[in-house]
């Protein structure tokens, strides 16, 4: 399977979306809305839930599955308000000593007039800064598309995992192809150059783990993933130095 096949799979509509992960892995999820500034961004779903007896804060980018859902979720392209909602709930997680788990699946942050007017860049920047310093464990899992700054704005973590067919890239293969080859149809070649697969990311130590997609979407799949997340959180919590290690993790790039 080549890199662009993975891009196609990562984007395909049949994959479980962020909300499916939340509902399948956690119990007693209570969604919390809004950024307390301007609005509630449907592209990001967030709240408190329980995982293996632990209260946790869960944040997911949701693309939506039906046409109506996709419109409501803005196809998983978050606005500044979405990143600010996420940050508000991460600060709350820190206050109540809850670990944070994020599920990332976006082609990129929203490229709209309103998004610029309300500071898309500032919102992502603030998240990067605060997530580097958050005093609770953070685990980020890329479940589909990891589109550039829009993905990174929720993926500064102690552990970053990717699903086997997820992709993570600084630019879309189409965008890269139109610059590099002056032809967006050469996206497959660009995808190879960008080294955007989970295997690539692991080989550059940009992620810690690849989640095999065998049984993707089944009860067993989510149950195994839930156990892995719970186990990892316990490991991070045992380490008094975890924040320093998070700094060093990104410092190494």
């Amino acid at each position, binding site marked *: 399977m080549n890199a662009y096949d993975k891009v196609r799979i990562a984007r395909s509509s049949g994959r479980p979306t962020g909300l499916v992960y939340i509902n399948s892995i956690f119990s007693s999820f209570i969604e919390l809305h809004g950024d307390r500034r301007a609005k509630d961004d449907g592209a990001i779903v967030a709240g408190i839930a329980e995982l293996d007896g632990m209260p946790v804060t869960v944040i997911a980018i949701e693309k939506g599955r039906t046409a109506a859902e996709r419109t409501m979720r803005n196809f998983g*392209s978050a606005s500044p308000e979405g990143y600010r909602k996420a940050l508000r709930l991460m600060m709350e997680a820190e206050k109540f000593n809850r670990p944070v788990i994020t599920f990332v699946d976006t*082609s*990129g*942050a*929203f*490229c*709209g*007039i309103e*998004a*610029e*007017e*309300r*500071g*898309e*860049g*500032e919102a*992502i*920047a*603030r998240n*990067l*800064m*605060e*997530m*580097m*310093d958050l005093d609770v464990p953070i685990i980020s899992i890329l479940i589909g598309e990891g*589109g*550039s*700054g*829009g993905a*990174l*704005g929720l993926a*500064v973590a102690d552990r970053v995992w990717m699903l086997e067919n997820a992709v*993570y*890239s*600084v*630019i*879309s293969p*189409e*965008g*890269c192809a*139109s*610059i*590099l080859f002056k032809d967006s149809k050469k996206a497959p070649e660009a995808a190879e*150059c*960008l*080294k*955007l697969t989970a295997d*690539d*990311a692991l080989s*550059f130590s*940009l992620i810690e783990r690849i989640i095999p997609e065998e049984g993707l979407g089944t009860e067993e799949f989510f149950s195994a993933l839930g156990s892995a997340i719970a186990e990892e959180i316990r490991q991070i919590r045992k380490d008094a130095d975890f924040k320093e290690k*998070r*700094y060093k993790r*990104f*410092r190494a*790039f």
Partner: protein
Amino acid sequence: MISFRMKPENELEKEGRDNIPSPEDEIVCPNCHRTLKKNDILPFMTCSCGHHFRLKARARIGLFFNGFSELFEDEKTRDILSFPGYGDKLEKARKASGENESVITGIASIDGRKVAVFVMESLFMMGSMGHVTGEKITKLFEYALANRLPVIGFTASGGARMQEGLISLMQMAKVSGAVKRHSNAGLLYIAVLTDPTTGGVTASFAMEADIILSEPGALIGFAGKRVIEQTTKKELPKGFQKAEFLLKCGFIDKIVHRKDLEYTLRQLLILHGIEKEGKENIG
């Protein structure tokens, strides 16, 4: 959807070259369309109509700082992904700019007050963020933290550097971590946004400063105009993503004309208790 790019890179680079007038030439001001001679725009490379021409990073350092001493200039950029054509592009960028990377870092003083400085070079691949760009800025913030210095940074960037893939993206988080540590220690960071400041630089250290100044008319934004038009199919408002627009939206503190910048920076340093060298810092 492409969230990280303003324009095709070669187009931006071409624009970068065209916008930096060599002082020997006559140049037409893109704002008032008058033909200007060297003496008309010196010393600040500004037109009397208010237009600010782009400046080379070293020219900027010369205009606003004294006693600049460069740090981390030996960091060497590598083609980590073996990306097609990157080696040649780096070579060309080095020739075009006379610099090894898209940022210059060091220590200097303003009015005798010592500061850590970074200045991005738009002639080097449009100031895009390679791993060495991120590394030098990170090291500067760490140095400033260790030596309890304020940081003054001039941004000019088209965003991430495609040829370094995810490694480029990760620079945003890396620098942000260093900015946060510097900030947690109660130290001052002033960013001066210059034309253009976009993409991953806007979505990281350009927007993380305590005080965010901008030059008049600078293009500042996250997504590129073309991408926004394609995504929304709407006409963009007049002056969209210009410094004046961002000021109105509440994302920059102040627009400062180049001729007033040294004074403004000096006053800000004084108001933050940054003493002249040789004196003890108070507070």
